[in-house]
């Protein structure tokens, strides 16, 4: 009798449960080996309003399905019966957490299809707003990763600074969450007096927060134990599953639209997105932390380089009778979650023919999450999900 065999624990569960002839795992719920549970839509660990249908064997997930559609409003249909200018208030609500990329994409689509050049000052202002919006997302998103493992302290600190950034937004645009600052042809207004000084004060707080969060999360032994090696994304998944943004950069693939397809004035800024190769939850979290640092730096660079005064809006036709000639285009920008694009088809009328938003969550939360959750522990679902930065409203729109 081999004594070693008795004490050997078989950790390899990759072939569990057995795979049937049709390529699907054989799961017989009435055999009492498996439990089917739903995480969401009413579940505090799921980001936003979506559901995961998990089949468990013990604590381990053997099959997972994502169910979306709880937030479907039919944006793409609604925009088809709104004039171009009416689309803007609708459009910002596409992804609630980070509304400004939506405005930017729609404005850029309209500008590209009707051939409008955006003045330089407006481009700088757009960039500032986009970076501020990224900052407010990351201030919650980076500590939010620890929040999924029940370390809510960083989230509380981050939210406080986020509220200050939202105050600056309010000062600039009048809105706290929805800004509608970017319009076709330019932006709505110049910076108010003393705005840069007040923003700089908030950025100093953010700097301190970046340091604190490093101590709290990345040097925390329990966080390391939970997050390291969790939710590993192999490099060949990047193209097959559609992995973007921080998740791809954590796998060692450079996916940052700001660097690869510089839009606005990003070519004039000096930045280098952080990449690493571990590709687990911890690495993704570190990448987003570096993003946070970089965003603070970028805002400072933008504030230093942008012109104080200048033209902020190119002349546009009467927005009530604005007809855009037939054409189609796809524009993209980098949101905090990854590549964020909009596909627009016009047919010469005063409404868009078709608008399609392509967000990174669409692939992250469906095909990729379903794959990553297999053989994960049920305790880690929230962690894996948040590390992919899922935003449900942009999946179903």
């Amino acid at each position: 009798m081999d004594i070693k065999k008795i004490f050997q624990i078989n950790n390899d569960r990759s072939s569990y449960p057995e795979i049937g002839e049709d390529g699907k795992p054989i799961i017989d719920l009435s055999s009492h080996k498996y439990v089917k549970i739903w995480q969401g839509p009413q579940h505090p660990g799921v980001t936003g309003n979506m559901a995961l249908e998990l089949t468990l064997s013990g604590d381990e997930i053997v099959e997972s399905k994502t169910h979306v559609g709880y937030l479907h409003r039919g944006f793409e249909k609604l925009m088809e019966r709104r004039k171009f200018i009416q689309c803007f208030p609708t459009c910002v609500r596409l992804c609630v957490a980070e509304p400004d990329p939506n405005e930017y994409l729609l404005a850029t689509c309209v500008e590209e299809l009707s051939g409008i050049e955006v003045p330089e000052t407006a481009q700088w202002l757009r960039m500032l707003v986009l970076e501020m919006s990224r900052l407010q997302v990351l201030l919650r998103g980076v500590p939010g990763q620890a929040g999924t493992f029940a370390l809510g302290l960083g989230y509380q600190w981050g939210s406080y600074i986020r509220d200050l950034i939202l105050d600056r937004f309010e000062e600039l645009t009048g809105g706290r969450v929805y800004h509608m600052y970017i319009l076709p042809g330019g932006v709505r207004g110049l910076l108010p007096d003393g705005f840069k000084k007040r923003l700089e004060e908030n950025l100093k707080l953010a700097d301190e927060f970046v340091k604190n969060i490093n101590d709290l999360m990345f040097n925390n032994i329990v966080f390391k134990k939970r997050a390291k090696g969790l939710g590993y994304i192999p490099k060949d998944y990047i193209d097959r599953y559609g992995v973007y943004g921080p998740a791809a950069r954590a796998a060692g693939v450079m996916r940052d639209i700001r660097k690869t397809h510089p839009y606005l004035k990003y070519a004039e800024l000096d930045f280098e997105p952080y990449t690493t190769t571990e590709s687990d939850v911890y690495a993704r979290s570190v990448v987003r932390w570096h993003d946070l640092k970089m965003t603070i730096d970028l805002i400072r660079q933008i504030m230093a380089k942008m012109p104080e005064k200048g033209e902020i809006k190119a002349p546009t036709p009467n927005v009530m009778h604005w007809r855009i000639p037939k054409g189609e285009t796809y524009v993209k920008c980098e949101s905090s979650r990854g590549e964020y694009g909009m596909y627009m088809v016009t047919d010469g009328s005063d409404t868009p023919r078709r608008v399609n938003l392509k967000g990174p969550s669409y692939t992250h939360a469906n095909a990729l999450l379903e794959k990553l959750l297999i053989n994960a522990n049920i305790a880690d679902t929230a962690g894996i999900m948040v590390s992919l930065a899922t935003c449900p409203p942009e999946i179903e729109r």
Partner: protein
Amino acid sequence: MQQIIQDIESRFTITDKETRRNDLCFLTVDKLQAISLVTYLRDYQGYASLTLLTAVDWIEEGNFQLTYLLNNPSTRTEIGVRTMIDRENATMESTHHLWENIQTYQRELKEMFGIDFPGSPRIDEDFILEGWDNIPPYRRDFDTKKYSEETYFPRPGRETNDPSTYMKSKLYPND
């Protein structure tokens, strides 16, 4: 970019092409050639990443336009492959063997446009809507306003005006 388009034109019948930017162009091909063009682009030209798959309803011509937008991460260019399929009994070959993430797009198209992709995994399951028994909502002949008014008890008191005529009457009442 031009080189690749010339290369494609020598192999496939491109009926229409539109260069939008120097990193984005759209090619229209026949329905039968679309899948082989997409596969060719993926396997031989490095367009390995699928950005999106979506449909446009050209109801006047009785067609759906399917757009496969492919991205080449190394040359940083994008090619949109457009193909027209018939609006009646709309079906298209499934490409779920090429990308794992395309099945989500195909499920959405099946539900929202009624375009069938036989063989695609979970294609018959609900994706976004639940228990929908009307025309697929993204089709142009589905009137969302009418449906909403008939179904969801609109609160009385809302006036709906055509923005252009309404604004004209407000701004220039004398005209």
